């Protein structure tokens, strides 16, 4: 590091400190400039969402920083009541939560089999799963839509709404998202399960424990961090999805926030009082997860980096 070379220089602690400060000034400048560029867009959106509609259209968002008295909640009031964002928020939760739980359950069983059971074709089968990780979703959408439109069970599900199955149903979306999430989920959990100490399993078997007992009493309780990372990754992936909802949900009443905001962009192009508040609403949950569970969040994203 440059400090070592500096310490070899002639005396004068003052001059030394000065040199160190200015020698490192470009480093700090670049990092801080980068952080500002990376934060300003989100801050601009947040600030604008609290401004009066006329003010948004006539003066830059930075003016609002000097007039905090003018801040208002009317934009949120109008997108939540008149623009369907409160329904969309609930719809996003209805879509995301079951899709996340299903993936964890189904993948955990498969991952256990891959990690601790012997059966023919185990390794080739796992390689196929690894290959499926990167298959683009686009490859599946046309046949799934055709299939769904043939087997749609029409009606209206109590409480949450939508058809019972197929196009325009939440259940159809849950199952599709579960399937799309599986290759990555199995990959992540199998690596974690496989790294658990073998002695644990051997002694449990000696005590006469069955696979189910070992799975529920030993493997799952020990796998908290991996399951948390998986849950966060899958939750965000479904929460942020636009394409699958766009293709498989026909009914705008069922739309999650991503789809609702896309519709608002198409109909309100530059009415930023509507768009900024709507966009920020969709960011609240992911941002809360990010700041509360940063460690698992980063692990989940890092581990899921290859998902197609």
């Amino acid at each position: 590091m440059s400090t070592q070379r500096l310490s070899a220089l002639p005396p004068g602690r003052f001059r030394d400190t000065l040199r160190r400060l200015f020698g490192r000034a470009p480093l700090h400048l670049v990092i801080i400039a980068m952080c500002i560029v990376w934060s300003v867009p989100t801050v601009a959106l947040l600030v604008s969402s609290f401004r009066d509609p006329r003010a948004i259209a006539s003066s830059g968002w930075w003016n609002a920083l000097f007039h905090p008295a003018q801040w208002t909640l009317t934009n949120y009031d109008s997108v939540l009541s008149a623009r369907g964002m409160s329904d969309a928020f609930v719809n996003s939760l209805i879509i995301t939560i079951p899709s996340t739980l299903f993936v964890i359950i189904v993948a955990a069983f498969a991952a256990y089999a891959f990690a601790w059971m012997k059966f023919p074709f185990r390794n080739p089968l796992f390689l196929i799963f690894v290959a499926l990780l990167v298959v683009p979703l686009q490859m599946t959408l046309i046949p799934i839509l055709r299939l769904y439109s043939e087997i749609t069970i029409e009606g209206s599900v109590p409480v949450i709404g939508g058809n019972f199955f197929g196009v325009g149903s939440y259940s159809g979306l849950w199952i599709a998202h579960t399937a799309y999430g599986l290759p990555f989920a199995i990959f992540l959990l199998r690596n974690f399960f496989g790294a658990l100490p073998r002695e644990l399993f051997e002694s449990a078997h000696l005590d006469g424990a069955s696979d189910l007992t070992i799975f529920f009493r030993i493997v799952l309780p020990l796998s908290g961090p991996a399951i948390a990372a998986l849950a966060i990754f899958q939750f965000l992936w479904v929460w942020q999805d636009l394409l699958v909802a766009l293709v498989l949900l026909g009914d705008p009443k069922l739309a999650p926030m991503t789809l609702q905001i896309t519709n608002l962009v198409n109909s309100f192009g530059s009415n930023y009082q509507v768009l900024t508040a709507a966009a920020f609403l969709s960011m609240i949950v992911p941002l809360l997860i990010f700041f509360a569970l940063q460690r698992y969040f980063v692990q989940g994203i890092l581990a899921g980096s290859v998902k197609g």
Partner: protein
Amino acid sequence: MIGRAWWIPWLWLAPTLALLGVFLVYPSVDTVRRSFLDERSREFVGFDNYQTIIDNPNSLAADTHAALLNNMLWLTVFTAVCVGLGLIMAVMTARVRYEAAAKAAIFVPMAISFVAVAVIWRFMYEVDPDVGTVNAIFSELGKDPVAWLNNTQSPQRPFVDLPPADSPAPFQVNNFALIAVGVWNWTGFTLVILSAGLKSIPDDVMEAARVDGAGEWQIFRRIILPIMSPTIVVVTTTLVIQTLKTFDLVFVMTNGRFKTDVVATLFYKEAFVFRDFGVGAALAVVLLLFVVPIMVLTIRRFQFQEEIR
């Protein structure tokens, strides 16, 4: 391992096999089949759909050549800038005390959906300098405001005075403006992974090099880069997959207008707006063909990891 009936493992795998079979394997095979059939998937048409993508006739709703070229631009520029910037920032932030805070600030956009990112940047790019931040800075610098998302001229146009002229695809202001948004969204990802890779280099290796008189640049070239090259490969393949899937961002920001379509947005239009399942399926297969080398690479890497376990 204990003795079990042969069918027990398959029971544990049954839900997974059923779901993957129905939602990934069967549809992929079916999409390949449909790419050789007509728009309603009735008659066999051979390679006609692929020929249509190559010929790019005017009858087609969108410009397939532009979309392919735009995807190539995303593939190269987006990937190179994200990896380069991530690497530089990983090395730089490792030298300051507020490293965690700086990395978090750059990582936050990863938490935001592409749809919300698109809204954020439509607002940033707004033409009116009293609304759009980028044009506000431009007008402070005495430049004319730029319609970042509509402008199909060459990318240096906003910065230097040139006579107006159309630029050959894909080198357009709006494509670069869109890619910049992608970079803003994804650099945090490369930064965090590369920074973790950097931390895994033992301190004494670096110290030894410094004692031997190596400069910072030499340490970067001769030690950091070689040790981190596997990590850089992983990050790069991930970004390449991302660029091939680029859909939401372009769909919400421009919907492919002003020659900004990419293969994934074109696929959506052909398959679900114009209901041409033949060309739509063929476009999906084109995406898959781009992914195949990465698939092979991923499997190789996985097999290697298994061997050293």
